[in-house]
């Protein structure tokens, strides 16, 4: 017992040392990275100047100006707010439903066998294929878009949650039972926390897909949103605004993803099988 503990402490120390070394190496190479990115931006500007049509192929300066104009006095903040609100509403409902579905199918083989065919088929139907029926059933307003995002997220989250529930270390369950935990306590105290990392990574994938779905749905018709900004750019053949919208999209997606990775590190690792020394 003590040898394994010491081995693990050594491993943790080695890991920390390696991480510190990696961070120092990163800092040492940072100037190279900054120089490289500057070089790419200069290349982009030069390429766009050579192309000679700033409306069709804007350089970083034009794009930056369009971005600043859009952010300060334009419609980018309102459009981003509309898109993000749709994504968050749909993701929240879809993830809740997905977690429920996944927990049910992960903890009972009968339910798993009943849900399995649907999860396996719907997973492969692209969410946007449902856009036309959704328009007919739910109208062209918010409901159809949010329904599509719910659809995008529910199956990914369900599959991951089910995998998480099944991967709960068996000895933890046994121990909790030995100490007389009730099934409810076992569920909320052991199974749910242990499957959190899986749930989070499912929601993370769903988040990326939700952005994709919402932008396409907005491009096909909406009152506001980043997708609308992009289609407006086509109507005016002004790619500067489109590039600004693309940059906002990338930044939003990246930030949302980082927030998730942060959540995963902060809350997910505590219960994962690796930190507890395997199943």
């Amino acid at each position, binding site marked *: 017992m003590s040898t394994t503990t010491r081995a693990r402490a050594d491993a943790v120390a080695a890991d920390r040392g390696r991480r510190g070394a990696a961070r120092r190496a990163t800092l040492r190479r940072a100037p190279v990275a900054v120089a490289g990115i500057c070089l790419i931006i200069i290349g982009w500007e030069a390429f766009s100047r050579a192309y000679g049509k700033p409306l069709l192929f804007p350089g970083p300066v034009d794009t930056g100006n369009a971005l600043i104009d859009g952010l300060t006095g334009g419609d980018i903040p309102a459009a981003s707010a509309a898109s993000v609100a749709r994504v968050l509403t749909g993701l929240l409902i879809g993830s809740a439903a997905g977690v429920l579905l996944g927990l049910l199918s992960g903890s009972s083989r009968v339910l798993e066998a009943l849900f399995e065919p649907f999860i396996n088929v719907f997973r492969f139907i692209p969410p946007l294929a449902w856009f036309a029926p959704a328009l007919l059933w739910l109208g062209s307003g918010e409901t159809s878009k949010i329904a599509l995002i719910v659809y995008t997220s529910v199956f990914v989250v369900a599959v991951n949650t089910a995998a998480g529930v099944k991967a709960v270390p068996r000895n933890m369950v046994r121990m909790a039972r030995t100490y007389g935990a009730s099934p409810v306590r076992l569920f909320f105290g052991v199974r749910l926390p242990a499957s959190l990392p899986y749930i989070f990574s499912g929601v993370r994938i769903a988040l990326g897909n939700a952005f994709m779905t919402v932008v*396409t749905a907005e491009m096909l018709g909406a009152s506001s949103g980043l997708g609308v900004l992009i289609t407006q750019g086509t109507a005016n053949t002004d790619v500067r605004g*489109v590039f600004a919208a693309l940059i906002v999209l990338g930044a939003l997606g990246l930030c949302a993803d980082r927030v998730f990775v942060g959540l995963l590190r902060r809350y997910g690792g505590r219960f994962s099988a690796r930190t507890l020394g395997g199943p």
Partner: protein
Amino acid sequence: MNRAASSPGHWRWQRPALNVLAVLMAVLAWHGAALWKDNLLVFPTPLTALSALGDVLTDPEQRTELVITLRRVIIGFAMGSVLGVAVGSLIGGVRSIAMTLEPIVHFLRSVTPVAWIVPATIWLGVGEGSLRFIVVYATVFPVIINTLAGLSEVPVNKVRMARTFGASRLRIYRTIIVPSAVPYIVTGMRLSLGYSFMSVVAAEMVAGRDGIGFLIYDSRIFFDTPTMFAGILLLGAAGLLCDKVFSVAAHRGLARFYAGQVNP
């Protein structure tokens, strides 16, 4: 649950039976709901959807829509995968390139592929080129990121051993680094295959003139819900089939790279 667990032989036929039962119940519920709603234009019964599916598959003109979409998926997926492995190996192999390109890759990955349809149509024109651009864009990033992950998970001790025994850099690359990265690349490609279906449908709806995505979206003008359902079923079947074919082919064809893994 416990009884089933204690008798796996018993469970072997129970599971498919439950699968079939669930599908039957769902189809019956669908049929009942459609009859209750009593508006076949908006909500078709399973039978009308199936006959529309038959029409789509037998009508030569509509059958080409499926062929067109599948061709877009396969070409875009192949180009995106090759490009992804190339860029991923370049970034993973050279540290100073990695520092520069990795943030850019992560940024571009976060931009929704379909949003590029506007610049793509302006640069490449309306039609095949811009649609292909979208599919390649959607497939390339998962492959890059998984190639990078694969290259960073190469067992250090194996490389050290090979170096001790005097293997050249090329040999180490060929015999250790590539084989250990292959499972990661395959996983990335499988993800990409799903994304290529998602993006091709979106791109066809936004900017296409043909293909299954266009067929589904175009049917809304005529309130032709059965054809929409036929398209949706076709996409689901094609996606499922491609995924299974790819994963079986990858694991059979690349079996030697999965040696020693319990769950390939």
